[in-house]
């Protein structure tokens, strides 16, 4: 008898059981356990492929799933404004997880690919946060990804390519909805994708033992509708899309990450993250992306929390204000990053903080400001 059962389902099950059943004491430790379970190398990642510096990323092939890697995502975050100037943030993410082995039994439900999707809308003006999750096995066509044209979906949530003409550029329709809210957006990348790290090979630790393949479309024109409680808002704005796949994103000693995707007013973008260690210095990485997608590595001098917020639902304290000091060969960049509204906690099976932020600071001598998204994981 082969070793069986959808491993990831089990891991997911831990999560939702915990979400549903956790008392506050458990709440303090379980998300970390979930994270380390899903994203670290401690749960049989030896059975999967691993990110390699030799990998050459190609399009559109790499928009597709990499089923031999444990986890993968198609991640959309955006800052939008209605015609009346009402500000919104949104996130739509499709996660794919694989488990190491499958049973010999023959039916549709015995599938080693599992999908999870998260949708969130931040209504900044009213400080209301809407979120929803969905999950499914890659069975009966309930979830999956395909290319030419590209489409990733979970049930009726999807990101679907509408103009499959230029392999370097993506034009997609995003559609998803939860209880009392939904999004229908059209996103169009202005430029070719940015290969993060070393040609898409993104290290996640000092030792290089954890790494992922990672590329982004940091600047996608966005238009469409956001519906909240029956009210429709026509919105415009910018979306940042991340694609990442890996089998070991975190080492056992790493507890979580703080990640920033920022659109500066001067047309430049910054992607910065730190992966926190249980002990010792976090692993940090930052990059400045110019208007023409030229990529300039940045040294992270400082990444310090300036303000925190405690979730009334989970009691978890998140650092929602940050001071970033970054340095390139040309300039010093000092940024104050702050949540546009405190409650943007994704209190779902996989609990984390994903929120729209505002940015203020200086790039060299120039005053800059902008919008962006911040993701905080592994807090408890």
């Amino acid at each position, binding site marked *: 008898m*082969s070793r069986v*059962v959808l491993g990831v389902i089990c891991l997911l099950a831990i999560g939702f059981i915990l979400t*549903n*059943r956790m008392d506050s004491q458990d709440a303090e430790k379980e998300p970390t356990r979930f994270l380390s379970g899903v994203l670290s190398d401690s749960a049989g990642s030896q059975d999967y492929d691993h990110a390699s510096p030799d990998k050459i990323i190609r399009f559109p092939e790499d928009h597709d799933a990499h089923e031999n890697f444990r986890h993968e995502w198609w991640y959309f975050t955006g800052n939008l404004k209605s015609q009346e100037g009402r500000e919104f943030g949104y996130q739509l993410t499709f996660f794919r997880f694989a488990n190491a082995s499958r*049973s010999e039994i023959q*039916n549709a439900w015995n599938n080693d690919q599992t999908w999870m999707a998260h949708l969130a809308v931040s209504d900044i003006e009213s400080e209301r946060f809407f979120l929803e999750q969905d999950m499914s096995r890659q069975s*009966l066509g309930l979830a999956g990804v395909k290319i030419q044209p590209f489409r990733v979906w979970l049930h*009726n949530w999807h990101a679907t390519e509408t103009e499959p003409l230029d392999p370097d550029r993506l034009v997609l329709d995003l559609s998803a909805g939860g209880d009392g809210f939904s999004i229908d957006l059209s996103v169009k990348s202005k430029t070719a994708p940015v290969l993060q790290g070393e040609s898409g090979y993104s290290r996640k630790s000092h030792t290089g033992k954890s790494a992922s393949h990672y590329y982004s479309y940091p600047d996608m024109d966005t238009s469409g509708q956001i519906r909240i409680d029956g009210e429709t808002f026509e919105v415009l704005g910018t979306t940042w899309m991340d694609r990442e796949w890996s089998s070991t994103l975190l080492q056992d000693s790493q507890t979580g990450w703080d990640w920033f995707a920022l659109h500066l007013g001067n047309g430049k973008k910054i992607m910065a993250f730190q992966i926190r260690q249980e002990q010792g210095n976090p692993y940090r990485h930052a990059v400045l992306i110019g208007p023409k997608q030229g990529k300039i590595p940045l040294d992270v001098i400082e990444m310090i929390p300036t303000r925190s917020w405690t979730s009334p639902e989970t009691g978890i304290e998140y650092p929602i204000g940050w001071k970033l000091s970054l340095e390139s060969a040309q300039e010093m960049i000092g940024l104050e990053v702050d949540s546009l509204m405190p409650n943007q906690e994704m209190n779902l099976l996989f609990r984390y903080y994903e929120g729209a932020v505002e940015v203020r600071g200086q790039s060299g001598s120039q005053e800059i400001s902008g919008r962006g998204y911040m993701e905080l994981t592994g807090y408890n």
Partner: protein
Amino acid sequence: MPTGIARSRMAGSTKIRKFEVSNSATATLLKIFLREQKKSPGPLLLTVLSVTIGVAAIVGVDITSHSALSEFERANRLSSGLATHQVVGDATGLDENIYAAIRLDGRFPNTAPIVQAEVQVHEDGQAWQLLGIDPLSDYRIRESALLGDKYTEQIGIAWPIHVPNTETWPIGSTLTLYYGGRQQEFTVAGEVFDESGQSDMHAEGFLVTDIMWAQAFLNRVGLLTRIDFRLDSEVDSHTLQILLPDSVRLIDLQTRHTAQKDMTRAFRTNLAALGYLTLLVAMFLIYSSTVFQIARRRNLLSQLRAIGYTHHEIARMLGTELSIIALSGISMGIGLGYLLSTLMLGLVTDTINILYFDVAHGTLELPTETILKSVVMGFLGTAIAGAVPIREAGHVTVQTLSKRTLEEGKALMLSRKMLPVAIGCFGLGALILMFSGQSLAIAFAGLFLLVLGPAAGTPWLIYHICRFLGPLAGGTLGLVAKTAIINIRSHLSRTGISAIALSLAVSASLGVALMVDSFRYSVDNWISHYMRSDLYVVSTMPGEPYFSESFRAEVATVDGIQSTGYSTRISIQSELGLHDLLAMDISPSSFHGFMILSPPGADLWDRFNQSRTVLITESFANRHDISVGDDIRLPTTQGEVSFEVIGIYLDYSSEHGLLTLSWNNFDRYFPNSGPTTASMMLDPGVILSDMKQAIGNLEAAPEQLLIRSNRELREQILNIFDRTFEVTDILRWLTVLVAMTGMIFSLVALQLERSSLNAKLKAVGFSRVQLAMQIIAEASITGFLAGLIAIPVGLMLCLSLIEVINVRSFGWTMMTHIDPMLVLAAVGISTLSATAAGIYPAMRMWRTPITAGLRDE
């Protein structure tokens, strides 16, 4: 200074002051009364006991019904979770792509696929429901998620399963499941959780596994048993209906659960009625005891009146005292009722299992509404019973001191006055019964009045019977009997009330017993007609209980079998709700076993075999108000098809009714997997055990067969029948017990009052034996007379139960069968219980020295 005087002197002071003084007067009186009670607590305790048993009966029935129902609801919650609707297919199942289409549509996110079947667990030999779920969608329906923390331990486990209790089956242990001829070893991976997230120790009957294992084990690849939905509105269900293919059916669970619960309503109402009857009997005892409590303290009350206490104060005091009695009785009644329900729960759930649907025994619950109801009913019963005597006690004056003869005169007058009330009560009861429409509760109210009427006339009857018997007894039965009869007559205020209670209890008991006996007789008669075969064979293979063609062919070749009929029974959800459908492939002679009620005497064999015809049972016809010639629309494999009702027949196999159609019709319109039951007529002289063995040994015989002879099956049916009435028996006996307690109490009270008379009798030469015999004779004669009076009342009750209550509750009629032994037994029980009740007062008298009795003079 007596408070009453203080109060009168202070006339004109403020209201507040009055209130305080009045309160302190009550407190003083209460102390005096309590001191009195302490001296002789027996009567007080018996009064408390009356309230206790009356309340216990109500609480017991209520808790039992409530617990059985909440167990049903809990099982439904476990199985259906928060689902409001279900989509089901036909007997073969539901294409899982329908689920995929609904999820991809996106409008119904709260949806979960289920694969479910009854399986057999080798380890305990029991049948369990195996629930195959998809945890990734199931949490939307069963919010708690049925799978627990230990789910993670499934990683690397093949064929994992979750059980209700890992103490019985520890994690890692194995369970072998059987289904449809297959067996599979599962490994216990965790516990099933209830809504609180706690391990559900009582999720009896449910095993949970992932849908992929369930499909594989149950051999249902590509198929679901159902899809659960949590829909927010009616609009959603209409939208969903449009989305669904015609071949499947959307079921509103709320409607179905309510319908299922409603099925048990008649049964529960019948039980509750018996509970209330016990309280009613108890009320007579409360009345009687209150009268006695007052009579016994006549001296004290007169003295209190003499020193200035007002009748209001005395009445208030007695009221307070009665309230304390009620409160103690109610508290103990709740406790005793709880204990009683432990005894009854198993019986009630067994009955529900037999009559309605599968439900585990579950746990006892004491709902707040039961406590409230028992408090209200306890107080109300006590208040009604105690109001009249207390009101009268307020009017006790010094002059009326110890004038029992006056009271007896009053009692006699009252008994006369009660006569028209009794007749009125009876008439009103009869009218209500006749014109109560379909309401069971109103019918029961009528029935209560019908029984109460004659009971109220009991004292008058007893008085006149005793007057007639007195002179006769003197000559034939001797002095003791004569004194006893005179005593009964002259102490009608005591004996009358006990006789009412006893007569009421015995008549109710007799009525119910006669009805049950008639029912049993009818069922027995029905079995004789209906079950004409010699052997009955049922496949008990979980999942696939069907006889194959090859089995049928083999059976046809067995020597000694004259003819074989086949049948199967399936559940369908038609426009009339969820009900059973029986398909029969039988010979004309077997068909003639049907007891056709309408059209009377018709030979329906040919019509039965015509296309789209159906027979219905009497209860089905009554429930849905369907007559011969009507059409019934049934969901078939060809869509909704109308079937003509060609006849209505007598059947006691299903309370909620049954549709019967020919095998040809069944085969054409319903998913036919084959018959599940065979009935065989054997050649004369064939030895049953040999034939059973021969059938069991047939090559194509299913692995698990249950072969029963006509006699065995008949015994089993009657055994089941008897089991369903066990709980009724308990309540019946409880009522008699209350009446008996009342009798003891009345007689003790009487002896207390008559202690001086007894002493005088002893003094003039009556021996203790004679006195004791006289007391016992008095009790026996009262019991005997109450029993006699109970006979016509019991017969009437029996007829009302058969003709009105049963038809209304269950929709079936039965033959009235009066077993003289039961009638005699009722009189015997009445006499014996009264005789037994006389023993204690007789012993008490025996021990009382003459001096003690004479001291009171």
